[in-house]
Every structure is written in C-alpha cells, then in structure tokens.
C-alpha cells in the first residue's frame, strides 16, 4: 500500500504522526533525520579541481616537462634564452587550459530557478497549535494548512479538503487548476487527487495535508535531482579535440624522441639535441588551435543569435551540426499556437465555422461560452488558447450570454471533461465540454434543429465519425452537452449526478495551423538525414494530421500513446524508435527523458525541445536541449543548451545548418594551422641532420602559432555555409576531425611547399651574407638573425596563399568568390602588420630574435605563396575530374 492508497487514519499511522501534528521535539528530531526541506545540488567536482585537471592531461604534461627542462637548461647554461622559452611554454599551457575550461564550464542556474518556485514559509500544526514556520524546517509527519494563494513546500497527503484546487503547472505543464480530494485513491501517485506536490500552488479552497516527503525526496526534488545529476558528457567536438590533441602530442613526442636518438647516434652533443627536442615538440603542437576553436565557436554562436537561436554553451554550436534526431513538441513549435474554430458539427451536419449562424447552433454556442474560463479583459481575451478560441467564437456568433455560475467541476485528466452550473432567468442548467467519447457517455439525447431526439447508436456513430473526420484534418475536437437542472435536484449537485442524461449539443473542431516555414524546414531535415520525432499531448489523429500537413510523415507512422508507453519495456521502445516515422501522442514531459535516454544509448545525437519545469531533466540529458524563449519557463531555459527566441522549429534547422558550417570551418582552419607545422618542424630536422645553424627559433614558432596565424584562422571560421551542406547526412561519429586526408593534405602537400619556401629564404639570406656551409654562426650575429627572420617571413607569406587554399577543400576559391569573405582580407592585413612589427620594430626584434630584411627577400618569397595556391587549385581540378560525384 502506498500513501495515496491509505485512508486518513492509516496515513497518520504510516507517517508516525497524528491529527494534532508533530510535537516540537519530534519535529526537531526528524529535522536531524531527514534534513532541511530544500533543493540541493548534486555534488560535483569543485570548480578549482575542474580547472586543475586542464593542466594534467597528456599534452599539458608533455609541455610541463619541456618547460621544466628549459628552466633546468637556463640554470645550467644561463643567457641562452631558455628562460624566455620556459615562460612561453607555460603561457601556452595556461592559454590552452583557460580556453578548454571556457568551453567546458557551464554555470548551473537551473536549480536556482527551481528553488524560486518553493515558498519561504508555511502554516503548520505543531503540538496541535497552528504556527507559521519556515518552509525549510518542514519535516515528514508535519501537518500543513493550505489556503488560497499558498505555494506548497513539500509533498503531502491531503487529509481534509474544502473545494481545494491546485495548479500543477510546474510539475505537469497543465495550466488548468485541478480539484483535489482527500479520499483514498487507487492509481498512480502522480495522478492521485489526494496528493499535494511541492512547487504547486493552491488556487482556491483550503485543506490539510500530512507531509510525507521533503527536499530532494519530493517529486519536485526528483526533477531537481535529474536536472543537476544528469550530465550530457563531452560534446562530439570536445571528444574529437581530446583525440586530436593526444594524437598530435604522441606524434610530437615520437618525432622528438626519434630524432633525438639519431642526433645522439651521429654524435651531436646533448645541448644541441635538447634544443632540437624542445623545438620539434613546440613546432608540431598547434598551440593556437584551442584559442582559435573557442573564438570560432563564439563567432558561430553570434551568427546563430542573429538567426534567433541563443546558444548558452559554446560546444553546442558544433554539436548542433552533428544532430541526428530532433524530438519536437507540436503546439507552438511546429504550429502557431493560435487556436481558431474551423469546423462545427451541429444538426447532423459538418459545417465550416464561417457559415454558422446563431440560430443554427444556439445551445452549442451557449455551452461553449458558459462552460469556459476564458475572459475578455480590456479588449483582450485571456486564458488557455483552446478556451479563448471557443469563447471568442461563441461571442462573435451570438454575443454575450449573461448568467451566474454557481458551480464548476473542473477539467481533469481522469474525467477528460469539465462541467459548470449556471443560472439565468431563475433557471439552472449544467453545461459540459470534453472529449467526444467521454461526453457521449453522459448523453441520452441529441439536439437537432432545436428538437431533442433520442441519442441512438446510429447517431452516436455519426458523431464519432464526424469527430474522427475533423481530427484527421488536424483539428482539436471538443464535444458539448447540457441539461436543465430541476429544483428537486438541489441536494445532489455532484459530478456523478449532474453529468447524466444530458443533451448532446454538437462538436467544435479547432485548428492550430502549422507555421508557414515549418514544411520547408522539415524538408531540409529530410535531405540532411535528420529524423524528426513529434511528441505531443494531442490525440493521435490530430498529431498525425499535422504531421502529414507539414510533411513530417509520408507513410503510415508508428504512433505510440503515453499510456501505452508506460507499459512498454525499454527493449520494445528501442525497437519502436528505430521505425522510420514515429509520433508520440498524448504524452507528457515525463516521457521525454525516457525517449531521449534510449536514443542516446543507441548512439544518436539528440536535440529535444521543452518549455516546462519538468522538461528540464530531458533538456539536460539531450545532447542539445532546446528551450522555448517565448513560452518557456525559467527552469527550462536554464537547463537548456539553446533558447529559441521565436519558439519556431525552422530556427532549429537554421541552427543545425550553422552548426554543420562551423564543423566544416573548423576542419578548414585545422588544415591551415597544421600546414604551418611542417615549415616549423623541417628547420629542426635540417638542424639535427645537416649540422646547420638553427633556421627558426622556438619563440618564432610561437609567433606564428599564437600570433600571425590566429586572425586568418578565425576568418576561415567565418566562412559561409557551402550550398550542399544540408543535403549531406549527419557526420558519422566515427569520422575523425584529424582524419588521414586532412593530415595528408596539411603535412604532405601544403606543408612541404611552405617548408621549401622557408628553407629557401633562410639559405638565400645566409648565402647572400657570405656564409659557407659547415661554419657556425653566433646567435647574436646579424646575418643569422636576418636568416631566421627570412625563414619566419616565408612561413607568414606562404600562409597567405594557404588561407585562400583552405577556404574550400573541394571548390575552387575563385568559384566560391575570391572576395566573398571580407574577414580573410582583414586577417591577412593583421597578419602582415604583426610580421612587419616583428621584422622592423626594435621591440619586435628583441622579443623574437629577428633583424630587419630587405624588400627583395619579401619579393623573392611571394611566388611560393602563389605556387601553393596554384597547386591546391590544380588538386581541386584533378579531384573534380577523377571524382565527379564529389
């Protein structure tokens, strides 16, 4: 037996309390046992530890070792510049740690939003006396006194009710207040009318309730627990970054150790070998990659914001591009959430709403008007969209119906209908509305042209057929009935008595038209290989009709209703979700998390929409939680990764397009950055193998990686989407960011051209200065400084050609528009200014160990940049020629 199954006295026994409440001492004891009634965050790793871990991964450890060895060298050989190098390496570790942390850090505000829904104090019985106590001090066994306007602080079993109505919106999303009752209930606890849940509000009436759960043990706490405990884990991009950095670090370490050993074998001294080992490590590690990636994601999020998708955490920008399944609400997301009456079934006829006359449907319009809680206030209709549509329709057609409401039996999910009792001109009548199947059970007559006729099976079938016909057109259908109340019935006005022998007045079908841009967005998703699963509270037929109208389904979809889903085992649900077209009808937010969990277990990248408080766990669980900016609660917004500023499904698809573009652009600038690693590494290989002066210093490498390369990389991150980007399936998660074609192109094709340029520049300057092969040069020699400067300048110049080469991996830069990305030119300009500073300014010379060059050197290096671009263009031509399907 559960608490809602028990009778009043059994409740007291089960909760070890009595009708006078707990004694103060007992309440204190229970506070020690069960803790404060408060929402607590699930313990996580402290922030400082999470930041600390950014300094302990494989790449960071490698760099720490390099820095430590640099400092050791400075100690043993002072004045060789190793101190600067050590500091620079530590700076790189910090820069990478900060940028990774920025990507991973996410402020947890959802729980703060949840806490706001709980009250500060509550009236309770202690020692038989009524007391106002802090909601935080409420314990299991306490008896709360509830009246209109009270927020309920804990889950409690009602033991006394007087017309008590509670708004469950935070828990169920249902905005209509529910009538509560203290009688024992045999069903699910969440649906039990004798339970008052924490976070809900008393709308009217009063009652007494015994607390049985507090804090994180409440239903509200369950949502908080799932919201704060569920971690969606690393995004696909973050996982790729981890893999890529490990790969690069391993390559750098392996190359370093290999050539260090060779240097040792051919008899070079330890000092030379050591400089080489550090140089090759620094050269092969793309120090600027993480900052560039973070800034690129930030720019992507800015572009998305312009398209009404507000991104809350940076990695989500790219995750959107990998989405394979979207679980979407219907009302307000696929549709406009502007309900309007479209069809009416009355007098045995199905009529367009516009053709209805007052005299044709007087009782139907009266029922729709009076059995309704919508109101006209200051010229604006207020209330639930469905009720507003009915109220407005009735008012437009027949004007106001003056009467006094004497009683209301509110709508609830169990009864699926609502009834009011109204008096006018001294007479009393009952008016009901609800689902057609339910209303028909209450009726024994039907009104046809002002005449009451027996409701035969034949007419009943006609009504059902009309209802189904309307639902098949995507309409939400409600049935209406009424009956006069005789004076001798005054003492029996309860639901069981009133809602019998009623007269069926008609059906009204309301439409919530799809948003105009949704059909196109759904078509795009189809082409992009993204599956869409509709999850709606509406009935099956309405859901399917809207799905057909928007193009969401084309065949016969598998429709699963919420009640059915409750009995489905995970395995069966898993199979159902693999169907091509799936719709979930009559589901509530609690079902979302289950669907999202199973989809994720199957390796899908899932985006899910939500607006209510109890959508928060699913929003957190999904790879991309999408909250509604207009209709969403604060809790949903805080739990989400992205907020739709217009609640529009089409905006999700736009954001996915941006996400895919971001990933494509990341690959472009990775190619760009990695290509420059080769001209940074080759000088060290030449240095160790051919015993020449070191052509490029470590500080100069850092000048490229963290200086001149940065802005052109960012400009590549701002490339526009390629036309076919939404015609490709979502990228496979097995597909690596650093794949073989990318590494081959960067390391074996573009990189060697740049390396040739930098070695040419280095030797040309040395040769021009009279250097003879085999001789050594002091590190302060102007000729040596000029030669390394030429090497550095060669990298910068060839990177200009490279940035154009990397703008598209398939299309010619001239076909996508040479000038179409203005930021590229701004980036190149900044790159050149920085290089001019490094080459010609005394401060630049001092910091980077450079010396001014003649213009001739620049002019001699320029053709290498042109050659690089021409070679890449030639590759693309060949690619198109031999792989036309690309």
């Amino acid at each position, binding site marked *: 037996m559960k608490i809602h199954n028990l009778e009043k006295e059994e409740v007291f026994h089960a909760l070890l309390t009595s009708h006078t409440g707990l004694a103060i001492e007992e309440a204190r004891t229970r506070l020690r*046992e*069960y803790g404060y009634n408060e929402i607590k965050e*699930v313990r996580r790793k402290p922030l400082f530890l999470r930041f600390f871990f950014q300094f302990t991964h494989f790449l960071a450890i490698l760099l720490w070792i390099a820095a430590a060895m640099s400092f050791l060298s400075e100690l043993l050989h002072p004045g060789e510049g190793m101190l600067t190098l050590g500091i620079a390496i530590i700076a790189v570790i910090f820069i990478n740690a900060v940028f990774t942390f920025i990507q991973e850090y996410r402020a947890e505000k959802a729980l703060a939003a949840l806490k706001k829904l709980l009250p500060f104090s509550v009236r309770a019985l202690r020692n038989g006396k009524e007391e106002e106590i802090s909601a935080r001090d409420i314990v299991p*066994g306490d008896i709360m006194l509830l009246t209109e306007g009270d927020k309920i602080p804990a889950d409690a079993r009602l033991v006394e009710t007087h017309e008590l109505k509670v708004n469950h919106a935070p828990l169920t999303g249902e905005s209509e207040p529910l009538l509560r009752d203290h009688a024992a209930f045999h069903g699910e606890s969440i649906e039990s009318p004798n339970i008052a849940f924490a976070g809900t509000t008393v709308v009217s009436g009063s009652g007494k309730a015994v607390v049985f759960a507090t804090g*994180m043990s409440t239903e509200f706490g369950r949502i908080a627990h*799932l919201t704060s405990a569920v971690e969606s884990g690393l995004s696909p991009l973050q996982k790729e970054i981890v*893999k890529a950095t490990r*790969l690069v670090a391993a390559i750098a370490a392996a190359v370093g150790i290999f050539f260090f050993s060779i240097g040792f074998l051919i008899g070079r001294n330890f000092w030379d070998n050591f400089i080489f080992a550090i140089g090759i490590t620094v050269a092969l590690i793309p120090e600027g990659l993480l900052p560039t990636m973070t800034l690129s994601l930030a720019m992507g999020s800015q572009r998305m914001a312009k398209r009404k998708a507000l991104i809350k955490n940076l990695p989500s920008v790219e995750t959107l591009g990998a989405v394979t399944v979207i679980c979407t609400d219907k009302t307000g997301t696929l549709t406009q959430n502007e309900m309007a009456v479209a069809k009416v079934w009355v007098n045995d006829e199905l009529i367009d709403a516009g053709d209805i006359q007052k005299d044709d449907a007087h009782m139907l319009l009266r029922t729709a008007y009076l059995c309704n809680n919508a109101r006209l206030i200051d010229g604006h209709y207020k209330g639930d969209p469905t009720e507003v549509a009915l109220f407005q329709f009735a008012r437009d057609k027949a004007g106001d119906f003056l009467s006094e409401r004497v009683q209301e039996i509110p709508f609830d999910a169990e009864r699926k209908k609502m009834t009011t009792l109204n008096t006018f001109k001294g007479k009393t009548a009952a008016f009901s509305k609800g689902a057609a199947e339910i209303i028909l059970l209450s009726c024994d007559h039907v009104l046809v042209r002002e005449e009451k006729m027996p409701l035969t099976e034949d007419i009943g079938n006609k009504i059902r057929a009309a209802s189904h016909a309307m639902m098949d057109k995507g309409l939400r259908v409600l049935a209406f009935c009424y009956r006069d109340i005789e004076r001798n019935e005054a003492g029996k006005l309860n639901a069981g008595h009133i809602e019998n022998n009623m007269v069926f007045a008609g059906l009204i079908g309301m439409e919530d038209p799809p948003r105009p841009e949704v059909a196109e967005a759904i078509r795009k998703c189809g082409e992009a290989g993204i599956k869409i699963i509709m999850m709606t509270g509406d009935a099956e037929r309405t859901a399917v009709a809207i799905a057909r109208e928007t193009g969401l389904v084309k065949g016969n979809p598998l429709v699963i209703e919420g009640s059915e889903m409750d009995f489905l085992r995970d395995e069966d649900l898993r199979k159902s979700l693999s169907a091509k077209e799936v719709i979930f009808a009559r589901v509530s937010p609690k079902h979302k998390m*289950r669907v999202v969990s199973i989809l994720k*277990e199957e390796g899908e990248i899932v985006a899910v929409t939500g607006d209510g408080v109890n959508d928060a766990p699913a929003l957190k669980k999904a790879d991309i939680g999408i909250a509604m900016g207009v209709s969403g609660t604060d809790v949903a917004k805080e739990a989400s990764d992205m907020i739709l500023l217009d609640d529009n499904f089409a905006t999700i698809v736009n954001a996915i397009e941006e996400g895919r573009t971001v990933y494509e652009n990341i690959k472009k600038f990775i190619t760009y950055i990695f290509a420059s690693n080769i001209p940074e590494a080759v000088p060290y290989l030449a240095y160790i193998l051919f015993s020449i002066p070191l052509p490029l210093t470590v500080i100069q490498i850092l000048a490229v990686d963290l200086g001149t390369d940065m802005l052109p990389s960012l400009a590549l991150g701002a490339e526009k989407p390629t036309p076919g980007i939404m015609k490709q399936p979502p990228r496979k998660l097995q597909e690596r960011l650093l794949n073989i074609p990318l590494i081959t192109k960067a390391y074996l094709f573009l990189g060697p051209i740049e390396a040739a340029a930098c070695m040419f520049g280095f030797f040309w300057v040395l040769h021009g200065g009279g250097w003879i092969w085999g001789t050594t040069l002091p590190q302060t020699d102007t000729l040596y400084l000029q030669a390394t400067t030429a090497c550095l300048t060669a990298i910068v110049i060839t990177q200009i050609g490279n940035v154009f080469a990397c703008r598209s991996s398939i299309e010619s830069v001239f076909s996508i528009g040479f000038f179409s990305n203005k930021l590229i030119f701004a980036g190149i300009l900044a790159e050149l200014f920085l290089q001019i500073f490094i080459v010609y300014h005394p401060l630049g010379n001092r910091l980077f160990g450079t010396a001014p060059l003649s213009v001739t050197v620049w002019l001699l290096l320029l053709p290498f940049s042109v050659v690089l671009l021409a070679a890449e263009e030639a590759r693309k031509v060949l690619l198109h020629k031999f792989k036309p399907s690309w």
Partner: protein
Amino acid sequence: MYKNILAAVNEYSNSEIAARYAIALAQSSRAKLSLVFVAEEKKDKDLFARAHAALERLFIQAQKQDIEVESVTESGDPLKKIADIIRRDSIDIVFAATRREYREKRYFVRTLSREFMVKLPCSVALVRIVRLSKGYPKNILVPLRGQLTSLDERSCFVAKLAEAFNASVTLFHLHKPITSFFHGETLLKSSEREEHVPKDIEQFTDCLHKYKISYEKKSGYGVVSRAITIEAAHKRNDLIVMGASERSILTSIIRGNPVEEVLRETPCNLIILRPGRLHS
C-alpha cells in the same frame, strides 16, 4: 535462509520504518523477529518513551502479520548488547537505520551504523530512509557489478524482500566504456552491452526465477553512483538494494566510494547489505 532476524529500534522514526523492512523479510522468510532497543546511558525519559512506543507499534504490526516476534529492551552499549544477542539467539541478519550523509563522520569518527557494519558477527542490512511513504516498495532497483561475492545470500535477500512486498525488481548493471588512448571512450549500444553482462548476474536471475519474482535487466554507463541515483529517480524506484562497499578507507579516499555516494544522494530508500559470509 534467514531464520532469525533482528531489527534495531531507537527513538528515531527512520529506525521504525527500517524495522518495517525487517518485518516484511521475516514474514516472507517465515523467520523469528527480535525487535531490540538498547538504551544508552544518557538517554532522557522522553526519548526512551518514544523508542518504546515505536517498539510497541512494530510488535503489534508483526503480530498482525503472524510473525513470531519478541521485543527486547536493554541498556548499555548498543554494539556490545546487540552482538551478545546475535550470538545468543543465532541471529542471521540485523536491520539498522542510518541517518544522513556525513561521509567524513562515517569514516573518521565512530558511528554506530558503521560499527554495526564492520563488527557485527552476522549479515547487516543498513537502511537509509529518505521517504517515509515508501515503506512498501513496488519496484526495487538492484545495482550489480561483476564478480559478486555471497551471491546466494544477496539474491535470496532481494528475492525475499520482493516477495514480501509483491514488488518487481530491476537488475541494473553498469558497463565500463571501452577506452583507448587515441580513440577515447567507445560507448556500446544496448545490444552490444548485453554480450558483456557478467555471468554472476545470470546466476542472480536464476535465483529470482526460483522465487518467481518478475524482474527487468537494465544496463547503463557512467559514474557508478550517479548512474544508479539517476536510474532510481528516473524510474521512480521505491527502494535500492546494493551490496556494502568492499573498498578500504584509503581506496575510498583515493578512488571514491560509490556506496557512500549513493547513500548520500539516494532519491529513494536504500538498503546496503553486508552478507554475513563476508564478515566471517
């Protein structure tokens, strides 16, 4: 399997709720139940009275359920007295309640529940009550790992408890993701995970079959304690039954202790079972 069951009761309501689990187990095992209150020396009269009232209520409840029951009140050191009763009456299992989440205290300061766990010469079921209303579980979550010790007792305990409450059981097994240096974590799909379910768990299910207990097998992944509490919260389980930690204090400090973490964060009532064989 259990012939003599002892429930330690005191003035706290959670000990009374915990004892209800002992009553249920005694009923389904047809075992004798000893309800024991050991008054520490400095307890005041009020606390004494409350503990006695609890004993009385539990005694009546057990009698109503046709259980052979005795009520024992002693004074002195609870650990010593209960250990004496265990030896004297050949008690098979002791039920005791544990309070909230003072992890540090549990480790570094002597707590009675930890002393029970470590020193009592029989099986111990440590019960944490977070919801008074969930004393009658309908669905029990049983997290399992591979290489289970005392498989017979564990499975029998779960089966008898489920039988007593006519509850269903969810066996929850956590998989370690397959990891490699260059490819990172590879998460297995549910069908692939099935292939990696340890054989011990199959033996566990055989036992549930024997007692005709309906069960569902589920597998998950992630941080152990987090995955268990999320599963329990998500599926609205009424009770979690898990084995006691076999990690030493030092290992727990370094690698964490999933049992302690579940104890702290559990969204429903929790029983931590330390089988008797482990102790011996």
